[in-house]
């Protein structure tokens, strides 16, 4: 399980805070500028899914984390 999560982290590394901030600003700008409720609600849905995925990812990495076994 730990190996799997390491490989996944290598292929899909966690998003950098700068990228998050840039994307967040762009999304806020789109929400503020857009005059369509459907667009705004789609962005809200996408953002909710993204934050749920981030929460699940943190949770799964906590579950995957194990202390190294003591050497005998």
């Amino acid at each position: 399980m730990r190996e799997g999560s390491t490989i996944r982290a290598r292929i899909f590394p966690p998003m950098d805070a700068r990228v998050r901030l840039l994307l967040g600003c762009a999304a806020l700008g789109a929400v503020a500028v857009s005059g369509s409720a459907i667009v705004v609600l789609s962005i809200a849905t996408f953002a909710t899914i993204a934050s749920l995925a981030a929460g699940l990812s943190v949770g799964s990495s906590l579950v995957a984390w194990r202390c190294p076994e003591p050497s005998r």
Partner: protein
Amino acid sequence: MALPGALAVAAAVARLSWPGGQVLAVLPVGPWAITVTEAGLRAGTLAGARVLAMVAVVLASTAGVSAASLLGAARWLHVPATLVELASLMYRYLFLLREEAQAIVRAQSMRLGYAGGMQSVRCAAAAGALAFLRAYERGVRIHHAMLLRGYQGELPEERLPRLERQQLAYLAIGLVLLAGVVRAGSGAY
């Protein structure tokens, strides 16, 4: 999500009576009546959706990231240093201030405070004043401590490495998706 939900509903209801288009319904609210117009319904839905979307976007951008890295990213994006410094100090001392305020309220309650209508108001005012005084004194002490540690008007800035290729790919994919959603929905309700 209860507070953003309530704010979204309030923002939507406040716009329901905007003039324009047909009158769709008249909702009786106690002695008053809210007239729902076509333009009002549209504007109300948009305002409510905007509140929910902004909260969702802020939550998604900050989920699972430390405040320090977010503030470092803000400096990298050339947000004024004063604002970032203020935000970091606020974040550092917000929880401490809350704990202090809770301790004051607890101490008042143990001394039979908040026992009646007017007394509760007096106790709340006293707690607020005391919390403000303590925060002010703490602020002065923190400023002296920072000066003693060589503070010269600016906190040291962390040098962030260049963005890796995968991070740039994330950014590009996110921006393309966002532009696609906005373009596909332009002109829709």
